[in-house]
């Protein structure tokens, strides 16, 4: 499970450096990211730009992380690739998550 965590102008950006967020890795992903989510701190941005494939286990893990957020802390998603965006759209989870388009990343870019 490869991920990077960095502070980016006041928010914590967790970038998933994996091509697949699937049943084989969902548990490990959740365990790796939860420590960055469960405590109080600045808002989080989960960058899924490297993820080309997401299944319902991966989606469940992302939802579990959102639920692990303490009161008042927000988690947004950014850079959803087409296959990942499809899963959020079909399950209507795009209505529950705040999803930032690549174009909305600001001057700093999304790389």
């Amino acid at each position, binding site marked *: 499970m490869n991920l990077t965590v960095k502070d980016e102008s006041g928010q914590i950006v967790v970038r998933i450096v994996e091509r*697949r967020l*699937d*049943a*084989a890795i969902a548990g490990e992903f959740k365990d790796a990211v939860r420590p960055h989510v469960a405590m109080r701190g600045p808002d989080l941005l989960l960058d899924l730009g490297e993820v080309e*494939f997401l*299944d*319902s*286990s991966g*989606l*469940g893990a992302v*939802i*579990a992380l*959102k*639920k692990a957020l303490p009161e008042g802390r927000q988690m947004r998603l950014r850079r959803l690739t*087409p*296959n990942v965006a*499809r*899963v959020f*759209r*079909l*399950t*209507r*989870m795009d*209505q*529950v998550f705040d999803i930032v388009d690549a174009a909305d990343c600001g001057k700093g870019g999304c790389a």
Partner: protein
Amino acid sequence: MIAGKQPESPAGRDSKAQPIIVLTRSFPALADTVREILILMTERLRLHTTTDLLGRAELVLAELLNNVAQHGRAHSADPAPIVHLSVVAQPDGLACSVSDDGGLLPSICLNSPPPDPRNDPEGGFGWFLIGHLTQSLIYFREGERNYVAFTIPLHPSKAA
């Protein structure tokens, strides 16, 4: 035309589209094996189909195969069910069949409503996605095996 892609040299091939068997494999239903099979399938399919159909096919098969891996045995210590998967590229989409020697598939799976996003569901998406993205899905059990067959259309009638 096979599943949305023109043959590279039409003159050299029969103009009538023949179904092409993309993949046929038997394997244990384990998360890591499922992942390997899906990667293999997408490599094979890339030659025969569109990116859009490829994405939908990978999602449907991931949900189905992982469901067998997670729920196919009553006791997790038992050996994983053995799955047989076959994917055939046709002009109008992909015909898939999956059989496994795991436990009986609950009938409720086959008519799964979409989970309500307001309840923050963490699961229950798998069979909804399968039902939404496939056509002509049939399920039956014969002997000790489950059989599921369906088509993933090149041009979906529902939003996908």
